[in-house]
């Protein structure tokens, strides 16, 4: 499938196949969770870890949800995977479409560039959070990692820069460490 085709799949699914809820409920709830984690752990590095962990738990379940709503099959290659994440996954769950950029020469790493993260809408980090390196939306990294693990890909997923730290855009790096299953399923396309 081309990137354009994945985009259409994502948009169709969002339009017809996705129950929706008010974004602000989601945004405020997530904010409340992060603050709770700060109070519980008293350490921003620990909060990052916990957000990633929670994201992972979500990711391993979420993948089935995506596939069910869109009728997509497992991807043939990492390039297609990147397109599915950005144009289908993020679209169906958050109604945003990060762009895929900065591919490594071996095709095993790429970046997701997010310029309109709903979670950031009203958010300003305390200076200590910036100083201590809180990645406010770190849950995304865990979700991607968990979802890809269910697709037999072991990955490292991490924030590289964030609007909340003063950058122009947010950037998540996705790195394929290894394919867990030797057999790569044939692409159904």
């Amino acid at each position: 499938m081309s990137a354009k085709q994945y985009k259409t799949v994502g948009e169709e699914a969002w339009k017809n196949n996705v129950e929706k809820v008010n974004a602000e409920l989601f945004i405020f709830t997530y904010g409340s969770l992060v603050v709770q984690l700060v109070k519980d752990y008293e350490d921003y590095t620990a909060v990052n870890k916990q957000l990633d962990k929670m994201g992972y738990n979500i990711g391993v379940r979420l993948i089935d949800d995506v596939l069910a709503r869109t009728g997509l099959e497992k991807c043939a290659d990492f390039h297609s995977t990147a397109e599915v994440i950005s144009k289908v996954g993020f679209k169906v769950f958050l109604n945003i479409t990060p762009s895929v950029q900065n591919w490594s020469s071996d095709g095993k790493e790429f970046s997701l560039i997010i310029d309109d993260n709903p979670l950031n809408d009203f958010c300003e980090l305390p200076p200590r959070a910036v100083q201590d390196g809180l990645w406010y939306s770190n849950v995304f990294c865990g979700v991607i990692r968990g979802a890809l693990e269910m697709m037999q890909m072991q990955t490292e997923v991490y924030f590289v820069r964030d609007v909340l730290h003063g950058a122009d855009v947010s950037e998540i790096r996705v790195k394929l460490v290894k394919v867990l299953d030797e057999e790569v399923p044939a692409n159904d396309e």
Partner: protein
Amino acid sequence: MSTKFLKEGIDNVQIGMDCHREMLQPGGSHDSMLIVVMAASFYFAIVGTNDSPLYEAEFGIQREENKYLQQFVVHAALDLVDDVQFMTSGCYLKAVDRYNDWTVSAYVTPSNARFMLLHEAKPEDPIRSFFAACHELYLRTLLNPFYEANTSILSQAFDAKVHTLAKKYLI
């Protein structure tokens, strides 16, 4: 030579508890005679539901030595706010208390943050507009998940904006 008189200020000279009157001698490098009288002086406080101030600012002539008095007057006026607030569903409560020649005007937000303004005689409309604009700032501050309701507002941007609003509506 330019001379500047503020009619309001001259009236206030008669009234005020402290007025700073400086007259610069004519001649010299500042070739002007300037009478600085007590023009407009305001003390603004945002008070949380726990009655502690979340934010304070002074506009116009600074009155350092009266800071505690200002806080006291505002705090005393909170009791009246507490009573009056059930009589209306509006946010702007207008003048709720008086102390000597000061008036305390109040505005209460839906989440019960109290905006208190200590001021001399001043028409209601600019004060109402000032309060409403500050409410917009307060709302956006509150929407930040990291801001805990009823804690001090320490944002420099917030402070700068409040002073800009004061210049626009009050001073």
